[in-house]
């Protein structure tokens, strides 16, 4: 696009505002680091991985700062949710595009869009009052890894489904026509033409779903039970890094507060890695 040089004040104004928008990330990292420094200095990064447990309120010396159980909690909850939501989400997208009659497909899409709009706190609330008691009847205490996985899976399913579906829609119709002309069955076409073609987009959809699962706070906080421990089965309660921040920040002081900012930095690191990975796969831009 050719631009005239005559409107430089306009351009400079825009540039300054854009720079402000671009600086917000830096500002976030800066303030996370500033708040995290006291803990990093007095406690040291090493103790976040080697201490026997997480009891940071005891003071820098007496307190313990082991993050690993919460890191594992985050990973398990995310992995579990992806394991459920990815197949269901991708299958839902395929259903919409290739199996459902036109009207039904549209209806189904609208339903999923509606669900994508339900706030996480509502999912958490529903999990707390409906799902957790059901699971408690089966295996107490009900607020558990499994409950968190199920609720998170429900929450990220729309993300995975809607993003996958838009990728599927961009699969060239001519490929499908050609595959049809080769006498391939519907599933064979999906398997050998559609999925390989849409692979990048589908992986991005799953990664964005994973990003959402890692960052999700409220729903997990409400249903996971929040005990800091390595869960030994699906019915054991867990605490994730995000839930930990939400649970303790309001009550935390000094080094405890600072330690929570260290965990926030770690979350940032995980997300940057996921976004980078999605970028690398898609070589495009990743937004919601």
């Amino acid at each position, binding site marked *: *696009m*050719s*631009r*005239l040089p*005559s*409107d430089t004040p306009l*351009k400079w104004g825009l*540039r300054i*505002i*854009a720079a*402000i*928008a*671009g*600086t917000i990330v*830096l500002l*976030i990292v800066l*303030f996370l680091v*500033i708040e995290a420094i006291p803990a990093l200095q007095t406690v040291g990064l090493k103790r976040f991985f080697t201490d026997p447990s997480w009891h940071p309120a005891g003071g820098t010396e007496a307190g313990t700062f082991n993050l690993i159980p919460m890191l594992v909690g985050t990973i398990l909850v995310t992995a579990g949710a992806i394991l459920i939501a990815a197949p*269901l989400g991708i*299958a*839902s997208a395929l259903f919409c595009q290739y*199996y459902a009659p036109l009207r039904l497909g549209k209806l*189904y899409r609208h339903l*999923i869009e*509606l*669900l994508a*709009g*339900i*706030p996480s*706190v*509502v*999912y*958490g*609330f*529903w999990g*707390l*009052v*409906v799902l957790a008691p059901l699971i408690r009847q089966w295996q107490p205490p009900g607020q558990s890894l499994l409950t968190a996985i199920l609720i998170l899976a*429900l929450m990220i399913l729309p993300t995975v489904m809607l993003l996958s579906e838009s990728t599927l829609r961009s699969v060239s119709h001519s490929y499908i026509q050609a595959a049809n002309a080769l006498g391939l*069955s*519907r*599933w*064979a076409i999906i398997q050998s033409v559609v999925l390989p073609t849409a692979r990048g987009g589908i992986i991005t959809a799953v990664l964005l779903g994973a990003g959402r699962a890692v*960052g999700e*706070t*409220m729903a997990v906080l409400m249903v996971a039970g929040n005990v800091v421990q390595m869960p030994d089965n699906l019915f054991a309660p867990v605490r994730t890094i*995000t839930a930990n921040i*939400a649970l303790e*920040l*309001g009550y935390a002081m000094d080094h405890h507060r600072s330690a929570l900012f260290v965990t*926030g930095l770690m*979350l*940032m690191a995980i*997300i*940057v890695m996921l*976004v980078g990975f999605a970028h690398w796969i898609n070589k495009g*831009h*990743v*937004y*919601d």
Partner: protein
Amino acid sequence: MTNWTNRIATVLMWFTALLVTSVFLWIITDLLRQGITHLSWEFLVTAPSDAGRSGGIGPILISTLLILGVCLLTSVPIGVPTAILLAEFSRKGHWFGRLIRSSLDVLAGVPSIVFGLFGNAFFCFYLGMGFSILSGGLTLSCMVLPLLIRSTEEGLRSVPDDYRQAATALGLSDAATLWRIILPAATPGLIVGLILSISRALAETAALLFTSGYADRMPQSLMDSGRSLSIHIYDLAMNVPGGEAQAYATAMVLIALLLIINVATSWASTRWLHGRISL
């Protein structure tokens, strides 16, 4: 043999759709059935009492709208110019545009609780705004910025180059081209961005817990703490024994609000845009 796999796949697809639909219908009917009984005009306008077990959500609605207002009033003036710069004034591959884009990509992925941490440290303490509607709104504003910029940018990019060439041929300046031709044509993108931002801001809880605070009273100024609808649901669900009924009703209000904003804005945009595009 292949026929057999094909048939299994078909069955599985329909089964998945049925499963997903029934689980979600379960949630929605549950929310509807439990929520609708408590819903009334009274509920919408009166203040909560007895920790929210009785009374309504009047002040909470006002706080929510104020937080939303602060969020939009700050994010739009930053977001739209940034989108204009990215779409109209930055050559492809230029370092400045690339840098800002990657920074926004990361910002889009930042978990809401990290926004909460940041807002708490920066707005509440460093800038001394305390737990207030202002802090909460500004925090949300940072959060919705990437969404807003992205869809506005998409909107700008979808304006055909012919328009720009025609404008240049007419001897319009950049600013005039932008104002008269490109911005009106790009409004659908901007509106989509606004809807997405409002939806995300309305639904947000974690970022507000430690920025806008908990107070369920009617706010007197933007420096007062205000409780958003989502935090009210959280509080009723977690901390108030016997608060479910009210939580259900509040959830209904929140979801209805999200739906109304979606429908109304898209309706208004098509109507209004018809008038603008036929310049």
